[in-house]
């Protein structure tokens, strides 16, 4: 990949107890691009995604070896502040998970935790984040309503706004559209395209058409290994590896 890398992994291995979930994964994630991770269930794509903000640290009996660098700094270095890391590397999950609070409070929560107290500044962040998440026009009149009253697609965009509010560098998305209808999915996909101007997006998806539509680079994983990673056009038009070919043409198993 010729673009400058924001994340690089070198020989990353991960075990859940005795089970090896990642095997010698080395890859680079280019800055301000969308990288998709595809592969069959259990291939390790979500595990790899969670490595990037050390979310696997929260799981018992996980062992990780190898090196992951964000902006050339090892995220497992002893001095790394995990809270700061997760501020830099935000995450959006499969099911929208807004806090049971108002729309405004959902977005303001992160900046508050990170020390923003000024009301005007918080209001500015909330508006900007909701605008970036393409939700502002739909909610600006009801910022104090409960976030749980929003539709599934709106809730997911609210979660994206909540992630943007702490100004991350990278946004991890783990199947962000799998619980959404096609219209809400299209809105999120359009949003991903806009977000890459300012952020780096890494998306895990089961939907290969979605990976093809939204990403610049695609990595195919199988049984914990990164089999092939390259430009999305190349992966979907003429993959180099037979395993990739078999997976994306549905000839697996």
């Amino acid at each position, binding site marked *: 990949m010729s673009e400058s890398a924001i994340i690089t992994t070198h020989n990353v291995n991960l075990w859940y107890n005795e089970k090896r979930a990642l095997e010698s994964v080395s890859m680079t994630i280019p800055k301000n691009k969308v990288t998709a991770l595809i592969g069959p269930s259990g291939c390790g794509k979500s595990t790899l995604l969670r490595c990037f903000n050390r979310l696997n640290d929260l799981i018992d009996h996980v062992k990780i070896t190898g090196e992951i660098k964000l902006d050339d700094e090892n995220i497992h270095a002893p001095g790394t502040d995990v809270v700061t890391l997760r501020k830099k590397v935000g995450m959006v999950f499969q099911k929208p998970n807004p806090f049971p609070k108002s729309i405004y409070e959902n977005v303001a929560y992160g900046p508050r935790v990170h020390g923003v107290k000024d009301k005007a500044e918080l209001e500015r962040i909330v508006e900007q984040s909701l605008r970036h998440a393409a939700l502002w026009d739909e909610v600006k009149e009801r910022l104090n309503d409960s976030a749980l009253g929003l539709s599934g697609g709106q809730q997911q965009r609210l979660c994206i706004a909540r992630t943007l509010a702490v100004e991350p560098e990278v946004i991890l998305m783990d199947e962000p559209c799998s619980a959404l209808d096609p219209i809400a999915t299209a809105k999120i996909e359009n949003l991903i395209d806009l977000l890459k101007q300012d952020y780096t997006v890494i998306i895990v998806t089961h939907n290969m058409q979605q990976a093809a539509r939204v990403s610049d680079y695609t990595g195919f994983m199988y049984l914990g290994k990164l089999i092939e990673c390259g430009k999305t056009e190349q992966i*979907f038009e*003429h*993959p180099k590896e037979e395993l990739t*070919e078999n997976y994306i*043409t*549905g*000839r697996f198993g």
Partner: protein
Amino acid sequence: MAEKFHTELKKLKTETLEMAHLGRFMLRTAVDALIRQDKELAASVVARKEEIHKMEVQLEEHCYHLIALNQPMAKDMRIIACTLKVITASLRIGRYGKVIANIVKKISDQPHIANLMTIPHMADLVIEMIDDSIEAYEKDSVDGISDFSARDDTIDSLRQSIFREGITYMMEDPKSITRCTNYILVARYLERCADHACKIAENVHYMNTGERIEIH
């Protein structure tokens, strides 16, 4: 679902091969009719015009359905892309057969000049190229098409030699102008058919390897 799609894809390929063989048959039969000055045989080629057109429409629609309903990728996508090109090339080859058959109807009342020059030989070489390109598509193999560039050069040289020879006969005897002009046209059509075989070969190469090549 993938299994159903791949069965459909195989069916599409089988039907496309039928069309390719029809196009090839129309050209071969038209050339035979020209050599034998057989107007009836030529008429039988013209009669299949509608059939090949119908096949083109049906097969293209089949391709579009498969794309719309399955969003094919990688080799599956390349098979359909190649198939669309094979359909077009086969139609053109068949239509050149029909055009040559129409010429047969016009010039079969008088004996051939110079034994049709090298047209029969040129036609054999062109048909061989068409056969090899169809076989490459059928067998998903690039083995029989690796020398197409050199074979296409031979066809171009033969067309030029027929052109020069035809001009010579026309200068010698103006009464031969109509016949020789038609010979030159037939040579031109055969050369175009070889180009279509090259197009099929280029696309089979892409289907097989994912890499684009150009056969000059």
